[in-house]
């Protein structure tokens, strides 16, 4: 399965690059449309398999509101990772923390961090969060061996859309709600944590 995913990703990147530089189709809206349509279909199907799975609901009920701990642990882990990275690389620690507080949402973090800390940091925030998404996809089969929730932690904000179907495939249908809610909460808090960290400067 992961072979097909990585092949599709690679072909997509090459196709997007060629299209952008040589304008073959000249319209990126086609890929946006494909993205949204397949995502909505997947969410429907994943919801359906969750609803069908009698055990999944029971597991969620037993865990209860504790699932809210997951996004908080991811947020603090990401920001600590940014701080440690900034100190190791001798970069501005606050900007490093802000860049990693995008939790994988690179289309937000790039422009936002760029606006606050300058273009160079915007580029770093962009690539950092893009790599987070990419590494989550590439390492999902290894991560799931560490812990069932490890790929959810790795995915950060992306676990409500792009990486969700892959996580459900590898971790099972019962992680659906934990993964979606964690990604959802991180998506909502990402702009606020970035701005909060920046205001410490």
């Amino acid at each position, binding site marked *: 399965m992961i072979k097909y995913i990585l092949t599709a990703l690679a072909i997509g990147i090459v196709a997007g690059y060629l299209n952008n530089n040589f304008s073959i189709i000249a319209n990126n809206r086609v890929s946006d449309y*494909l993205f949204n349509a397949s995502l909505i279909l997947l*969410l429907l199907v994943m919801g359906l398999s969750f609803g069908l799975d009698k055990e999944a609901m029971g597991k969620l009920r037993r865990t209860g509101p504790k699932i809210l701990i997951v996004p908080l642990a991811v947020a603090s882990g990401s920001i600590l*990772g940014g701080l440690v990275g900034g100190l190791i690389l001798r970069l501005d620690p606050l900007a490093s923390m802000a860049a990693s507080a995008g939790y994988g949402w690179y289309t937000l973090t790039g422009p936002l961090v760029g606006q606050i800390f300058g273009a160079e940091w915007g*580029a770093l925030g962009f690539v950092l969060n*893009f790599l987070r998404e990419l590494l989550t996809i590439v390492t999902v089969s290894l991560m799931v061996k560490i812990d069932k929730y490890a790929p959810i*932690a790795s995915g*950060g904000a992306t676990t409500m859309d792009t990486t969700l179907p892959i996580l459900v495939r590898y971790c099972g249908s019962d992680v659906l709600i934990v993964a979606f809610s964690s990604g959802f909460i991180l998506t909502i808090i990402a702009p606020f944590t970035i701005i909060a960290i920046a205001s410490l400067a």
Partner: protein
Amino acid sequence: MINLSALSLIIPLIAGILLGFFFRKRKHVNLGKVTVGAIIVLIFSLGFSIGSNSELLNSMPKVGMSAFVMSILAIGFSVLFVVLARRRLLME
């Protein structure tokens, strides 16, 4: 500032869950092939948007190494904290 498209993703998810409850009595619902096909399309179009983002591709060589180190650390600490929380709080 709040991502409205994020909120709208809840709708198909909840619709799916409700449909699932409704179809529970039916014997077999096999959606394996649909899922795999849709995942391939999703990931292809994700790749497409990355490949056509020249701003992202151009900044790769300049900041790539620092970004890689930081992304590994952000992932590492996130996994560590979540695994610790899960073991301590006995989440299923």
